[in-house]
């Protein structure tokens, strides 16, 4: 049973595709790394999956999941760190699915929030305003919120950027824990070593799929070279995509 199904998906901005003609499936419970150079469309693809970006063409099926069954950790969250909110309250927003507009935060929920904060190693930070945290601590807070969201599909966009080794190891352990709990995890990553050692499945992206499959088969020098050669620039005078015509005629 697939958690995610891509049907000839093209995602982009202003009609310019950033991810071209992607088809395939992510099995339920899979642990998938999405790799590729900057500008390859990794973030774009993840935004498409969580529904922030509508596909220009094709479709993404969530296998019966509601948008609220997805937890999304964006690359550079547009978080207003100067807003006066405590770590406890901020992490608590992860309970939105259960509490929504008016649901109370009872004793059980408070316990859950405290446990989530503890499991990212931030005991004692509950009452600190989020503005006083370091970058690594903030990333831990965001992981704690994902933890609380209790989502069956977890989408992480470069979650270990600018994070030190200790924090990375702690957070990676959480990712593996999610995998062991049977959740589907997709992560955009740059660290090939990490992908090789910890992620069973890999999608190499370069404005379109280069290769997709078991990490050992996909993560080859040839594939990475193809991805590196990708052309980043938009062509302002690009014609409408011909591949679309072909596929629609075939249909």
């Amino acid at each position: 049973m697939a958690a995610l199904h891509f049907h000839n998906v093209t995602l982009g901005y202003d009609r310019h595709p950033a991810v071209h003609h992607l088809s395939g499936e992510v099995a339920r419970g899979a642990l998938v790394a999405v790799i590729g150079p900057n500008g390859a469309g990794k973030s774009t693809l993840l935004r498409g999956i969580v529904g922030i970006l509508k596909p220009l063409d094709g479709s993404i099926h969530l296998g019966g999941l509601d948008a609220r069954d997805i937890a999304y950790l964006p690359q550079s969250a547009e978080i207003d760190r100067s807003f006066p909110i405590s770590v406890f309250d901020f992490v608590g927003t992860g309970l939105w699915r259960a509490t929504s507009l008016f649901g109370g935060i009872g004793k059980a929920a408070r316990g859950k929030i405290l446990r989530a904060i503890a499991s990212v190693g931030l005991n004692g930070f509950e009452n600190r305003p989020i503005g006083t945290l370091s970058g690594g601590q903030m990333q831990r807070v965001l992981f704690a919120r994902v933890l609380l969201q209790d989502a069956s599909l977890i989408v992480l966009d470069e979650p270990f950027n600018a994070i030190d080794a200790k924090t990375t190891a702690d957070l990676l352990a959480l990712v593996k824990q999610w995998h062991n709990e049977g959740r589907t995890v997709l992560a955009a990553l740059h660290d090939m070593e990490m992908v090789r050692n910890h992620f069973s499945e890999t999608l190499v992206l370069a404005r379109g799929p280069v290769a997709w499959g078991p990490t050992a088969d996909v993560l080859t020098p040839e594939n990475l070279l193809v991805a590196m050669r990708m052309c980043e620039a938009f062509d302002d005078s690009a014609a409408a995509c011909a591949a679309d015509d072909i596929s629609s005629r075939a249909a």
Partner: protein
Amino acid sequence: MLYDALIGPFTEFEFMRRALAAVIALALAGAPIGVFLMLRRMSLVGDAMAHAILPGAAVGFLLSGLNLFAMTAGGLIAGFAVAILAGVVARSTGLKEDASLATFYLASLALGVTIVSIKGTNIDLLHVLFGNILAMDDQTLLVVAFNATVTLLVLAVIYRPLVIESVDPLFLRTVSRAGGPAHLAFLALVVINLVNGFQALGTLLAVGLMILPAGIARFWSRDLTAMICIAVVAAAISGYAGLVLSFQTRVPSGPAIILVATVIYVVSVLFGRVGGIVRQMFPGRHLEA
């Protein structure tokens, strides 16, 4: 003696009691809105919106003279129209909300002043621009209290999405569709409270009783709930002290209220516990951990 100065005016004159009730209602509803305006970096949006109300109020004035009911209705319609138009333009195009608002409010202000001066005198214009809280009748007072009540109820409903949208809008978008409606409801509350303040302080100063207390609160707390409480208290004190000042010195009431708030603001900037200037200059020895 002190009694005569501070309490006497209110026991003696009914218009002072009405004015006091009005400023307290304005403080209760307007200050929390002001705190959110400030935290969402929309302080100037509030100001712009205040001007946008003018043409509506002016049309009301044109149709039925200095009738506060007609002017309020007109102000509400104009304010909502501009708020929603600016919000829609900002959300459906790449234009930032402040830029689209600036366009709308400049047009509104020009239109409003034109309409008032077609029919009214300079005194009417002054009244519209600066309000007159000492001329509140029962009906107006009830309208002000009603608007304040509605504001607090709606704010309670949209509080959670509003807070989350302020901190992490992208997160709210991924878990809920409440962000857009909450934002529009918030803009509506801004308009309602501006129209409310408009009765007392006029278009140009209405936003003062919302923004100044919020600015004051920021210097005394890092906690949202505490900030809202401090802002309400600061607004109520400014209102009361402004009325006394106005009664004793014949300074017009609206400017007197805003001037008192300004004095509190300056004191807060200097001596505030959170980021006050004096506190920054003499922070004390650094802590151990």
